[in-house]
C-alpha cells in the first residue's frame, strides 16, 4: 500500500527545515570551543536531566553488570595482564622519577626556585562516553569540590601528582564534571621534554598516540623519553605532570620540525582519578 504525501516537499516543510537548520547552526556557532554563552543553558538542562538519569542508572545497572559479567571475563583477564605489565613498567618509572626529582632539586637550588605542592581532589569515573563520537567521561566531583573548567585530571588514588595526565575538565555541574580525555582530538596542552624543549601536545583519537608538535629538527629526542606538562603562564596545568613517553620520532614534511608521537602514561580506563586544583587562567 502506498501512502502518498503531497505535502512532503511543500514550501511549508522546506521552510520548517530551513528554520530548524538555521537554529542548529546558530547553536553550533554559539557553542564552539572558546565561546561559552550557552554553558549556563547546558548546565540547567543537564541539571534537570540528572535526577532522571540517576534513576535510570539505578534501574539499569544490574542489566549492565550482568552483561559485563557474562561477556567480560576475557577483558578482565587481559586487564589483569596489562596491570601486571604496568607494575613492571612502574618500577622503571619510579627510578626515572627519582632521578628527575634529584635533577629538579639541583636546578631549583641553582635558580633559587622553591617547589610548590600540587593540591588534588580524588574523584571516581561514574559514566563512560554515551555516544560513538563522544570522547568524554563524567566524574563524581563538581563545583562543590572546587573543580573548575580547564583543570587538569590525572590518574591515581592517593594525594599528590602521582599518575599521568588523564584529561581536562570541560564542563562543571554541582556534583559532577565532564572530562575530555587526553586522546580526544580537541585536547591540546603545552608540554616539555626532559631537555627543556617545549612543544604542543594534541590528541588524535581513542587508541591512537598523542602528537607532539613544535620540536625543531636538531633537538635530541629519543624513543622512551618522558614528556611533562610545561606549566606555561596561560595553562591551567601545573608544570611537571607526567604526560607520556615518546613512541616514535620522524622529521616532518617541512623539514623544520620533528613529528613526535607520544604514548599516554595514564590508563584511560582508570576508575579513580584526581583533579589538580590549580585555577585556570582568566
Amino acid at each position, binding site marked *: 500500500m502506498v501512502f502518498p504525501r503531497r505535502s512532503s516537499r511543500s514550501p511549508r516543510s522546506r521552510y520548517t527545515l530551513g528554520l530548524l537548520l538555521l537554529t542548529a547552526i546558530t*547553536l553550533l556557532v554559539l557553542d564552539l570551543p572558546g565561546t561559552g554563552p550557552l554553558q549556563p543553558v547546558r548546565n540547567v538542562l543537564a541539571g534537570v536531566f540528572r535526577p532522571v538519569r540517576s534513576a535510570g542508572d539505578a534501574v539499569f545497572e544490574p542489566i549492565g553488570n550482568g552483561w559485563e559479567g557474562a561477556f567480560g571475563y576475557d577483558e578482565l583477564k587481559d586487564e589483569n595482564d596489562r596491570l601486571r605489565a604496568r607494575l613492571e613498567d612502574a618500577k622503571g618509572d619510579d627510578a626515572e622519577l627519582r632521578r628527575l626529582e634529584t635533577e629538579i632539586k639541583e636546578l631549583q637550588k641553582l635558580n633559587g626556585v622553591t617547589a610548590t605542592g600540587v593540591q588534588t581532589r580524588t574523584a571516581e569515573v561514574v559514566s563512560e562516553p554515551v555516544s560513538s563520537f563522544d570522547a568524554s567521561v563524567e566524574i563524581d566531583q563538581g563545583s562543590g569540590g572546587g573543580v573548575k573548567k580547564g583543570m587538569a585530571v590525572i590518574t591515581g588514588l592517593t594525594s599528590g601528582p602521582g599518575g599521568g595526565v588523564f584529561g581536562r575538565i570541560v564542563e562543571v555541574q554541582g556534583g559532577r564534571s565532564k572530562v575530555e580525555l587526553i586522546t580526544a582530538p580537541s585536547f591540546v596542552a603545552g608540554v616539555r621534554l626532559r631537555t627543556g624543549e617545549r612543544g604542543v601536545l594534541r590528541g588524535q583519537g581513542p587508541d591512537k598516540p598523542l602528537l607532539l608538535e613544535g620540536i625543531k629538527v636538531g633537538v635530541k629526542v629519543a624513543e622512551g623519553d618522558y614528556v611533562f606538562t610545561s606549566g606555561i603562564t596561560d595553562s591551567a596545568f601545573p608544570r611537571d605532570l607526567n604526560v607520556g613517553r615518546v613512541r616514535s620520532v620522524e622529521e616532518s614534511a617541512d623539514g623544520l620540525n620533528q613529528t613526535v608521537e607520544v604514548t599516554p602514561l595514564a590508563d584511560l580506563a582508570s576508575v579513580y582519578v584526581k583533579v589538580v586544583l590549580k585555577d585556570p587562567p582568566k
Partner: protein
Amino acid sequence: MSAAKVAAVILVALVLQVCLFARFSYDGARPDLMVLVAIAAGFVAGPERGAVVGFAAGLAFDVVLATPLGLSAFVYVVVGYVVGTLGANVVRSAWWIAPVLVALASAVAMVFYALVGEVLGQATLSGPPLTAIVVVVAALNAVLAPLAVRALRWARTDDIDHRRHPFLAR
C-alpha cells in the same frame, strides 16, 4: 502530533541510551537510539514532523554529550526530513520495510554525522572505526525499528483526532 507524547518518547529514548545502551560497545562503537527516534518520526509522520522530532531528539542528546550543542540536532533534522521524504514513496505492506529502511538510514546518518563533525573540527573520523559504528547502530536500530515506529505512531495519535476536526487539522 502531541508534543507531550513526543517529549515522552524522546525522554525514554535518552534515558535508555545514556543509562543502558551506552554501556554496550563494540570496538568503541555504541548504539544510537536518538537517531532511531528521528528516523522513525520521518517514517511515520513525514518530512516536516520528522525534521522537528529529529531536532528535538538531537538537541536532547547534545545536552549530555561533550560535542558542541546543535551538532546532533543539525544532523538529525536532515535525517528526519530525508527519511520522511523518501518514506512517502515506499510501499509499506511488508513487515521488513521499516527495519531495512531504518538500518539504511542509520548507516547513512552515522556517516553524515562523522562528516559534519569532522568539518566542525570535532575529528569524528579519528574516533572508533566508522565501519564498526555503522554496523552496530544499523543492526541494533533495525531490531528496535518496530518498537520505535510503534512509539511514534502512538505519539501521532492526536493527528487522527484532528482529522475529525477540520479546524484543528494542520
